[in-house]
């Protein structure tokens, strides 16, 4: 359905383009959040949009997350399709009621009569020494609570397609972009943050994982920046004659359980990599999914690499110690294969 051109964009520009195209197409789409106007969004998700669409549709807000996210809910049930930006996901604690109890539940409470077509986009992730209140991913927290879809693009192509899908979806969609996959000029250079992105609008379906790299010896399941780490690891493992299949979940809700199972049934081994906290989160869910659906295929207990249940520390050495990286993934795969 998409014409692939060779145009390359960073993930950040792909997001901004997706929003712009949808705003052109649909008058009811608008964006609100802190520093999304003249600043263009702290992570550039709304870069250039104020100039193009003006302050009525690109609305800077006070630091009132409960107020403006709740207002987005109210606008969504009254004919608009708002995109609200929560600057860092770490700030969810000041506005979670509007997100999980209101945005995510109105449709259900109303027996399906009321729709809440909105996108809540937010920056996630660490690795650049921003400490424990600005470095979390927290997707497990949201994915645990019913009523909102949760998507996490890891590359420019998916970022654009998932954003367009999210905007067109009649449900609330939490769109979590990892700072490390955006290709921002002021972050550590990451070649995987730039990719081919068609100029025209296209969608990437919400709820479908993708096989980012095929392999036969082990399945590595992850999401976000850890995808890049996993792909790096897979290349290194390849040199050692180990063939790793890398699955990008892309959506945590709905979770593409079939994609996980299909791969595990092929490779018989599973490593889950997560930049969220280890316990009670994504790693447990993916492993349990594999156990429920492919128990007899497993040649070894599935393993996981995640933040070891500590707040994200500031100091580089400490933070690197707790973050998943390709060294840890390589080691994890080798241990798994030895087991």
């Amino acid at each position, binding site marked *: 359905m998409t014409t692939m051109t060779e145009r390359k964009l960073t993930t950040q520009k792909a997001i901004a383009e997706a929003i712009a195209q949808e705003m052109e197409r649909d008058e009811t789409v608008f964006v609100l959040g802190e520093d999304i106007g003249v600043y263009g969004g702290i992570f550039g998700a709304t870069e250039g949009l104020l100039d193009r669409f003006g302050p009525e549709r690109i609305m800077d*807000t*006070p630091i009132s997350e409960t107020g*403006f996210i709740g*207002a987005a809910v*109210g606008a969504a049930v009254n004919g608009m399709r708002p995109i609200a930006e929560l600057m860092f996901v770490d700030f969810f604690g000041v506005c979670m009621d*509007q997100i999980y109890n209101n945005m995510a539940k109105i449709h259900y*409470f109303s*027996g399906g009569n009321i729709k809440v077509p909105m996108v809540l986009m937010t920056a996630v992730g660490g690795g650049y020494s921003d400490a424990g209140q600005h470095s979390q991913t927290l997707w497990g927290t949201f994915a645990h609570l019913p009523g909102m879809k949760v998507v996490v693009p890891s590359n420019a192509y998916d970022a654009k397609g998932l954003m367009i899908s999210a905007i067109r979806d009649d449900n609330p969609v939490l769109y979590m972009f990892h700072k490390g996959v955006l290709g921002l000029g002021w972050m550590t250079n990451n070649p995987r943050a730039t990719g081919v992105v068609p100029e025209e609008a296209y969608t990437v379906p919400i709820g479908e994982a993708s096989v980012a790299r095929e392999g036969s010896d082990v399945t590595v399941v992850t999401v976000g920046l850890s995808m890049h780490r996993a792909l790096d690891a897979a290349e290194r493992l390849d040199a050692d004659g180990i063939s790793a299949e890398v699955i990008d979940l892309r959506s945590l809700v709905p979770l593409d359980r079939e994609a996980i199972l299909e791969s595990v049934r092929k490779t018989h081994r599973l490593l889950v990599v997560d930049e969220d906290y280890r316990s009670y989160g994504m790693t447990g869910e993916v492993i349990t999914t594999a156990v429920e659906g492919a128990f007899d295929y497993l040649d070894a207990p599935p393993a996981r690499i995640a933040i070891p249940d500590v707040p994200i520390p500031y100091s580089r050495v400490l933070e690197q110690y707790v973050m998943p990286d390709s060294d840890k993934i390589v080691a994890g795969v080798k241990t798994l294969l030895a087991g």
Partner: protein
Amino acid sequence: MEIPREHLVDMYTTMVKIRYFEERIRAIYFDDKLPAFDIAAGEVPGEMHLAAGQEPVAVGVKPHLRPGDAITATHRPHHVAIAQGLDLKKMAAEIFGKQTGLGQGKGGHMHLFSTEPNFGCSGIIAEGMPVAVGAALAFKKLGKDNVAISFFGEGAANQGAFHESLNLAALWNLPVVFVCEDNAFAISVPKEASTAIADNSDRASAYGMPGVLVADNDPVAVYEVVREAVARARAGDGPSLIEVKTDRLWGHFEGDADAYRSDEFKATMNERDPVTTFGDRLIDEGVLTAEDRDAITEKMHAEVDEAIEFARQSPEPAPEDALLHVFA
């Protein structure tokens, strides 16, 4: 009072309807629960927050509304929902948890939603306030001349969402009317133990919007103040804050022993029951005859009885329908 007679009669009629609805729900609520009260038992289980006594706030607002105007109400929503004209059968059926209910039994009495009339409520204190701001924002963006009314209790006025909502509405000059139902208590906590100043209406100045106190639980007083606020909002002149001193005649929820309010307090409150006093007044002032009153009462009772009968006779939802409607 230069209020059209039909509005006076409508307000009274709706008050009678609300009160009788609450009375019937109350009776049914206790029916299968006593003597050994079990909150999970009976035709209407769960928490039940009834609004007897607070009718004036609801009915004083309604005459100023137009189709499409949005209402967000609270955990104590029936009076506002009924005044707003929600389908009484579907509303009752929702309270009974039936398939025919507004939410097919998924929401219950704190979660009544309707598109036309445009109504929502919530079990979380002050949760509806930002939603009203958002509704008003949508109206402005869509070029509609609708307004949004946010009802909330005086207890809710100490929740952060109050502050953020009023600031946003004023900042963006939105058509919102914030209506504080001050029944002097948040469950057992009296206003003076929760609120650093006497009147929340005085907090309007923190947002540069008009703040008006309605000192009596009087539909006419509410009517007049809201008329102005709604007109202001509709004209594009921005939000207002109104605080109405009202009475919660019964417990916070049904089953509440209400031991935190003195007998004197309750007696005084019951003496000024707004349904009785407003009815008397309309008769005194020649707006209604005693026969009119009886006819209204009879008609409203019949309507409520019919709605409740509808709810009772309606089928339960299919159990597995619990899995529906998570996503559209």
